[in-house]
């Protein structure tokens, strides 16, 4: 079985700065999954997304799509990759060319990928895609982007991706600029696409709450490295890496029985220490040990559904292969295929 998309030791450096350091992971092509990539700004999550989308080449390592290296694809393979791996961007304002009506972003892919044989068929495809994301075609088509709300615009962008019948949607902070009351609806739509249309979704976010709600597995990045990865229940429900613990305890929950955690520590770095010398989180870690400054921790497996890159778990076995997705659990969509579809037709 060939994976849908694989990263093999992907890294991205800008001069001396390492944006992403050696990430290996693969997403299955047979059971569509929802994977969250989480971290703060500068964690490398957007770099990872752009590498997966083929927007930027990795400085080291490879990206394989259906077993083919994206860097050396033939023309037709590249077209297929371009069509099947679709982005949803963060800013729902900047994705529309202000010169055109919203129709433009929907008609262009139909024409350029030859999805329809006639204008009527194209129109039908576009209307279907809009309806699928909860937009009324007659209220949406023919409008200029500034006449739609941020939530509506983001839905048009999801519809654009759906139109191409992709295998993978990479959504980079798709709701961070959308109003609170509309966020849940858009995320729910992503989940529905995953279940009903068998589209795998990579959800890039800084918001662990929504990641927990919609995703199966999560990768937590810190300064370009994987801090913790595994099922959302384990990683967010019971974080093991001190950085994940810090993130989870900083979520402002609307729950008065869960007040925010306390202050954070700042350790003095040994003279001449650079982040390459040891664990990148060592300077902020409340459990820092001598060894943390001296070498990079391997990926330990505190349990079967997660890995933590932290010496606190040095008694646990280490991950043998590089691929972090070996600790991922089976996706929800694989357990309950077509649940939403069945519910929709009583």
């Amino acid at each position: 079985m060939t994976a849908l998309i694989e990263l093999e030791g992907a890294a991205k450096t800008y001069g001396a700065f390492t944006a992403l350091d050696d990430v290996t992971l693969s997403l299955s092509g047979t059971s569509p999954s929802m994977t969250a990539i989480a971290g703060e700004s500068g964690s490398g999550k957007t770099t990872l997304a752009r590498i997966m989308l083929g927007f930027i080449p990795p400085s080291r390592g490879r990206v394989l799509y259906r077993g083919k290296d994206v860097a050396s694809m033939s023309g037709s393979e590249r077209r297929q990759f371009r069509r099947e791996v679709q982005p949803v961007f963060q800013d729902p304002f900047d994705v529309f060319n202000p010169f055109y009506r919203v129709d433009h972003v929907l008609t262009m892919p139909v024409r350029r990928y030859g999805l329809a044989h006639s204008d009527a068929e194209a129109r039908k495809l576009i209307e279907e895609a809009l309806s699928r994301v909860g937009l009324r075609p007659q209220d949406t088509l023919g409008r200029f982007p500034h006449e739609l709300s941020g939530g509506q615009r983001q839905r048009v962008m999801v519809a654009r991706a759906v139109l191409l019948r992709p295998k993978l949607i990479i959504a980079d902070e798709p709701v961070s600029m959308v109003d609170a009351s509309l966020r849940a609806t858009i995320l729910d739509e992503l989940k529905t696409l995953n279940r009903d249309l068998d589209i795998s979704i990579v959800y890039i976010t800084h918001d662990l709450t929504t990641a927990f709600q919609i995703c199966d597995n999560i990768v937590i990045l810190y300064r370009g490295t994987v801090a913790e990865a595994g099922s959302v229940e384990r990683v967010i429900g019971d974080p093991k890496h001190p950085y994940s613990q810090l993130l989870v305890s900083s979520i402002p929950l609307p729950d008065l029985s869960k007040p925010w955690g306390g202050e954070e520590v700042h350790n003095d770095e040994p003279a001449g220490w650079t982040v390459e010398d040891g664990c990148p989180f060592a300077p902020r870690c409340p459990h820092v040990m001598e060894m943390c400054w001296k070498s990079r921790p391997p990926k330990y497996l505190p349990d079967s559904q997660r890995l933590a890159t932290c010496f606190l778990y040095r008694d646990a076995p280490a991950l043998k292969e590089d691929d972090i997705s070996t600790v991922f659990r089976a996706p929800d969509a694989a357990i309950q295929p077509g649940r939403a579809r069945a519910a929709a037709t009583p």
Partner: protein
Amino acid sequence: MMPAERPSAQPAAPILVVEDLNVHYDTTDGPAKAVADVSFSLRPGERLGLIGESGSGKTTMATALMRLTRAPGRIAGGRVLLDGQDLLQMNTAELRATRLRDIALIPQGAMSSLNPVMRLGDQIIDAIAAHVPRMSRAALEQRVGELLTSVGLDPSAARRYPHELSGGMKQRAAMAIATSLQPKVIVADEPTSALDVVVQRQVMQTLGKLQGGLGAAVVLIGHDMGLIAQFADTVGVMYAGRIVEIGPVRQMIEAPRHPYTRLLVDSLPGIEVKRDLSGIPGLPPRLVDLPPGCSFAPRCPYAFDRCRRETPQLQVVAPGQRAACHLYPEHQVLPPLPRGHAANDKDYAA
């Protein structure tokens, strides 16, 4: 640290009283009522969180409290009484003396409000010297050191330029300037909107400490119910320019009475159990053509005829809690969501 359990400042007289505040934006389609008939009061030491989505009037409200409203916006009526004095009636000199000394604003994106070509210390000194002209240089510098320490920065940060600081540090610096004259009221408009979750928590905790030390009242304006819940002891919910519900934080989260508050709380997923996400169907109304009656009625699963005719006024629905909703006083609590409500199944957003 439990905001709700902090010693309450119950007996003191209010420091800030807002009465029937109205702010309009003049547009070619007529005036947009960005803030409509808003009234509330704050006692010293109280933390009020005002929550609203974009277009709810919350930022307009923050600027109006400082009387910083700019054209095409204008304050169309009402009073903002600061320690008994109406800010809206003051002359320019009185206003200049009052801002920062009695009421200070931490603006949205305060980090970019710092002057990029001035050292941090000099910016703080400028702010103080404008109000306290006869302070010696040495005393000023000592004060700068104290202020920076109070916001969790090293006193050496005084010699730094804004570009040498991280986002969180700049936000702290902006807080140091805002509290430099020990104001009685601090208005914070989304003070952490561009910060990462860990830094956000640290900045909010610093703001909490500062406020506790000064005994100042805080109006925290935001869109994140979780953040407001973690900080405020009173929560006001704004919708289409009005406060639709206001009350103690615990009641607002555990027993909201207004349907909008309920749906807003419900749209926030926790990290305990996975559940189907439910947004609020429909869109916030355009402020220039508000629907007749209750502005939330078109999106409200409980709406009935009266809601579409008559604008509900705030009324007491529980001790300390008021809601603007026609379900009361007929009902004691918010009834369960009607079956087949649009938030339960899929609905069009247009």
